[in-house]
């Protein structure tokens, strides 16, 4: 055992603190990659990025052991996360801008067999891989986590003590897992992070564990995610059997050669579309797309900072990350089957979720559906080959959606958990809520795609590409584009529906039933069952609880970030900063060669190798003339106007229906419209009955089957076993009264008689 411990310590120490030479690491994988890794310093710092939050989780655990009642856990968390953010920033600034950095901490799962050729070793290190994509993600993950941690220090203050520690422990663990997911050097590391964020999401959704809805929502999230994870797991295994490795560098190099590891041409295989589809299944589970979206709205049961960080900004974009990261695989298929599915999956989900969001009354749920819808945009972007747009939208969305959620959270915090837009109005005039309203407005403008906001630019990049990419490349891409344009209008409408109802207009508010937002509160149960009676009773003497410095500071920072993010569109060589980052990552490919297999993968190989290929670009409308048009116009130029008009129409409709002439919180002009549209309105409000439908076709049958199995096990399988004991027992019992006298002599006599009979028989047989 000493030997083993020694090895571990040695590995950890040498790699994490003495830094294994990245060049040597690169050379280790040189066989796969043809060399060319720039040996950038900063490997040790990189390794610290995930380890700091992990240390934070442990530290908070120690606080929990000492039953710390102050805000110390929160400040420790924020401090450590801030350091992690700074480290990310340092890594980014010290990065040469094209070569991936790799750091291997220790061997995690590794096996060797056979004669040790390609595909006869499984080598998944506990290792990190940094390129443009992971850096972009890490920057906003650590940055937002720091800010939201600060916000939560105030938001969760009611729970100081064990609940506080539980919250921040899981919070830290989440950042660690997310870092592993994004920085993972191989698919198994990615899977580690993938499941880790799932666990933290489960723990944090169910944070208010006395609420059954919260507990059920946590379980639903975990289980639905697991279904997607099965796809990811099988995709991973199939990747291994096809390409012989799970490490990104080796994998992309093999794909770059256009063949499987056994040398068969990739085109001819079925794995070329099967693997992306399986990975996509995992991505859709995590990012709540298509059939998997049902868990995300329910996840809004968690505390609002959690919804902002995990269920809006970071974790749910992990699916987008996965698809972007594995882009070489997706474009390796000349038919682009998987990407077409991604396109349509994203488009349908975006539209579907937007329709539901329009009819909801719970503002947090509206934001939840809006997240699903926006994630649909991102997938749609990846699908129509607007990788840069998709990734940029992830980035801008992270900021403005976090702003929106945190503003909603501030409202919820201030009005005792009230989230119903029919019971809140005119917050602009409520003292202390000015910053919240302004932040909310900035977030709404971004989400609605108001011109010159960050959301506007990122959405345009995606939408324009729908027409640029021809329908023959991605099946029906322009039709999906029209659907997305319609969705953009709906988005503007439902966003400003919330804003006009809640934040402006006549002042009126009714507090929620959740005066103390406690999880570990002894009175927690009381609130649950007399919620009905409380409403008006409280209104008499209720004073809104205006946010204090931490919440306001964070809102200002995030709103500012959302505004400034727009500026990133104008910097860099490849259509904005995000374009630069994508260009220096595995997500980059050469669109000119899509469909032409060998050239396309060559482009991928270049990108991975950090080559100087500038032949094409995801959004490079001006470099090649012949691409699709929208109504005869160049989408790259005119999409700015088209989407602006669509956004204005949506906002205008919301203005007319929900602001103009509204005198009270509960009603608006939209009500008559809603009545006119029955039953569509009710159906949309009831989320198209999807939950009920799933319950009916999946959960109930499975439960019935389980019960059947249980009885089958008890009666048939165990019954057969019992027969072996039962038959002899029954037969002896039927004979026992006659034979079992208990008198010794009877038994002896019978034995003698038996022996005598045997002897006689033997004698007869022998003679």
């Amino acid at each position: 055992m000493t030997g083993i411990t020694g090895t571990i310590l040695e590995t950890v120490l040498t790699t994490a603190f003495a830094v294994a030479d990245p060049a040597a690491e690169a050379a280790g994988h040189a066989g796969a990659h043809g060399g060319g890794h720039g040996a950038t310093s900063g490997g040790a710092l990189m390794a610290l990025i995930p380890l700091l939050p992990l240390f934070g989780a442990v530290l908070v655990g120690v606080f929990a052991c000492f039953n710390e009642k102050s805000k110390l856990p929160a400040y420790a968390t924020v401090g450590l996360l801030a350091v992690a953010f700074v480290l990310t920033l340092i890594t980014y600034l010290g990065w040469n801008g094209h070569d991936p950095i790799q750091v291997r901490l220790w061997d995690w799962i590794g096996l060797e067999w056979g004669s040790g050729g390609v595909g006869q070793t499984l080598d998944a290190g506990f290792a990190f891989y940094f390129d443009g994509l992971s850096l972009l993600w890490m920057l906003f993950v650590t940055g937002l986590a720091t800010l939201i941690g600060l916000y939560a220090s105030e938001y969760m203050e009611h729970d100081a003590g064990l609940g506080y520690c539980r919250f921040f422990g899981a919070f830290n663990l989440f950042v660690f897992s997310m870092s592993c997911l994004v920085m993972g050097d191989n698919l198994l590391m990615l899977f580690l992070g993938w499941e880790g964020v799932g666990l933290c999401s489960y723990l944090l959704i169910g944070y208010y564990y006395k609420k059954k809805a919260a507990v059920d929502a946590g379980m639903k999230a975990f289980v639905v995610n697991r279904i997607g994870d099965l796809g990811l797991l099988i995709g991973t295994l199939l990747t291994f059997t096809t390409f012989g490795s799970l490490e990104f560098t080796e994998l992309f190099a093999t794909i770059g050669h256009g063949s499987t590891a056994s040398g068969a041409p990739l085109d001819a295989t079925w794995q070329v579309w099967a693997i992306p589809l399986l990975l996509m299944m995992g991505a859709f589970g995590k990012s709540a797309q298509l059939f998997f979206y049902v868990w995300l709205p329910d996840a809004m049961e968690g505390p609002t900072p959690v919804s902002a960080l995990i269920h809006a900004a970071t974790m749910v974009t992990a699916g987008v990350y996965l698809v972007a990261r594995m882009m070489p695989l997706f474009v390796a298929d000349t038919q682009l089957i998987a990407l077409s599915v991604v396109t349509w999956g994203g488009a349908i989900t975006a539209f579907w979720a937007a329709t539901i969001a329009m009819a909801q009354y719970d503002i947090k749920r509206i934001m939840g559906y809006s997240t699903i819808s926006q994630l649909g945009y991102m997938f749609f972007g990846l699908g129509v080959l607007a990788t840069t747009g998709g990734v940029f939208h992830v980035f801008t969305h992270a900021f403005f959606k976090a702003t929106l959620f945190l503003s909603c959270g501030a409202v919820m915090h201030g009005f005792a958990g009230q989230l119903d837009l029919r019971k809140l109005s005119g917050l602009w005039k409520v003292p202390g809520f000015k910053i919240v309203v302004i932040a909310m407005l900035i977030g709404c403008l971004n989400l609605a795609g108001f011109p010159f906001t960050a959301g506007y630019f990122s959405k345009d990049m995606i939408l324009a590409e729908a027409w640029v990419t021809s329908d023959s490349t991605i099946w029906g891409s322009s039709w999906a584009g029209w659907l997305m344009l319609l969705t953009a209008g709906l988005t503007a409408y439902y966003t400003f529906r919330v804003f006009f109802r809640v934040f402006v207009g006549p002042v009126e508010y009714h507090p929620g039933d959740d005066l103390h937002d406690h999880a570990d509160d002894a009175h927690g149960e009381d609130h649950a069952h007399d919620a009905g009676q409380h409403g008006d009773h409280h209104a008499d003497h209720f004073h809104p609880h205006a946010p204090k410095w931490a919440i306001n500071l964070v809102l200002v920072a995030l709103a500012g970030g959302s505004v400034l993010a727009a500026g990133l569109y104008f910097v860099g060589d490849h259509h904005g900063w995000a374009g630069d980052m994508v260009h220096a990552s595995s997500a980059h490919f050469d669109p000119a060669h899509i469909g032409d297999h060998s050239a396309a993968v060559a482009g991928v190989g270049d990108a991975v190798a950090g080559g100087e290929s500038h032949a094409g670009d995801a959004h490079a409308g001006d470099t090649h003339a012949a691409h699709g048009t929208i109504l005869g116009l160049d989408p790259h130029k005119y999409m700015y106007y088209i989407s602006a008009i669509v956004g204005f129409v949506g906002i205008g409709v919301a203005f007319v229906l929900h602001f103009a002439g509204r005198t009270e919180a509960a009603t608006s002009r939209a009500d008559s419209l809603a009545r006119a549209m029955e039953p569509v309105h009710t159906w949309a409000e009831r989320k198209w009955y999807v939950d009920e439908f799933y319950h009916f076709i999946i959960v109930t049958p499975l439960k019935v089957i389980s019960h059947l199995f249980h009885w089958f096990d008890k009666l048939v399988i165990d019954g057969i076993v019992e027969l072996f004991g039962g038959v002899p027992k029954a037969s002896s019992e039927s004979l026992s009264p006659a034979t079992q006298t208990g008198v010794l002599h009877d038994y002896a006599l019978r034995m003698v008689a038996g022996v005598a009979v045997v002897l006689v028989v033997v004698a007869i047989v022998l003679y």
Partner: protein
Amino acid sequence: MTTMLVLTILIPLLFAVIVLVRPPEAAKFWALGGTSVCFLLGAMIVGRFFSAAGSSTETMQAVASLEWLPALGLNLSIGVDAIAVLLIALALLLGPICVLASWTAIPTDRARLFFGWLLVLQAAMVGVFAARDLLLFYTCFEFTLLPMFVLINEFGSTNRKRAATKFFLYTFTGSLIALAGLVYAAWAVATRASGADLGPGGFTLDIGVLTQYASAVLTPGEQGLVMAAMLCGFAVKVPLFPFHTWLPLAHTEAPTAGSVLLAGVLLKLGTYAMYRFVLPLTPVAVYEYAPFIGVLAIIGIIYAGLICWVQRDIKKLVAYSSVSHLGFCVLGLFALNTSGITGSVLYMLNHGLSTGALFLLVGFMYERYHTRDMDQIGGLAAKMPVWSFFMVFFVMASVGLPGLNGFVSEFLCTMGAFTSYTPWTTDELNGMVGATWGPLGPWFGVAAGTGVIIAAIYLLYMTSKVVWGTLNEPDGHDDDHSPLPIDLGGREIATLLPLAALCLVFGLFPKQTLIDAVEAPINEQIAFIQQRVTEAPLRDGTLAAEAGSPTSKASASVLNESSNAAGRNVGVKP
């Protein structure tokens, strides 16, 4: 080291005697002392083993033999390889933990009976893993039944007598048939093997000799029968669907320490015996029937998992989850490739840790509330935060969360099944890529993968009922009249902490701690099996190697190229 190994068997027996002759009040202290000494010895054995072995962990160490009845080929011989030594360490680790867990649960007047038998059980368990002689192995294998019978029969809950009897008779009957199969193999070696070292009696039960020669002298038909006989015993022990019905009953009724040892070690006797006997003694039959066994394992994974979901009794739920989990273990074993068997061996250890801990936790809860019914109890997070923390932790280890131990073994088993036979990578020209030689196939991996979802469903369902929600306690429960603290006390935490720490270490450093240790003997075993299967005559009398590819001769070094092609003809294709 040999001495230490022998001592780990003898010391518990000695302490068992001491426990019997000392006053009942002292029983638990003596038992704790005995198991702790053994645990320390175990730790030293592990340390010595891996430092002595250096690069060659496949070699047997601490080998010793004592002639007993040489005329009948009976020796008392012991020895351990990496796999045995790890399982011994697991058994020795669980020893003191079980004693501590039973500290207050056992009434003092009956403590001598309980702890005495617990010590005997420990000796028998170590004996099984250390045995290098068939008779010693079988004796210890069966002798584990007796202490466990007493523990269940005397210290179980309401339905204990029935559970104990069923457990004893079911597994005992199975083992007898297995003995017949083993003896047949030994007889075949004694009569047919040329060159085998049979000893003075012309008959040997030495496991090393048997595994080396039996597969060569048994015809494929005989191997099928011998394997069936052995599986009768070992599959019941594991338990493999449909031989599992004794397990939920026994687990439910057993006292906490009994459940922990039953799940932690006794079930592993079955899989260990499969690894030690079934695979090397009858490789051709194993290869041929592996898909069938794989199907049983997968049925077990899904079927038992779904049954878990509708249980109300927490302990029964965890018991059925063992059936489901052990399905992965058997599946990996019969994938006959490195990742599968490594995963399986890791599963034996990891399942012992995580499920053992779950049984401990359920036991601690039962000691406080005297119920295991999920409808009567719930929301314990509010009252027992420490207990809840550990519960969630071990549930996650059991669900297979990466970073904890369960994932590594589950992934490797699934991968083993998936890559066991992957036709698309076996391009004739280019050899094999990513895939390995084996009898199962991708669909086995996919089907087993669904178990991951089901595990999440039933374990989280239990968690949401017991840990989360509003506090729900059985009627008439009164904390003030309980001698135990409301949340877990120091003693109870001490039983859980080492298990939790190992779950983390095995989850984060599986390669350094486990995989590197067991890889060499497993690869050796696989090479042996491959060779036997490739050389085996087919039903039509030709050699598999010839039938597959005319150019390649089967030898260990080129097996990876040749045996796959051959494998197609021998195996039942998935």
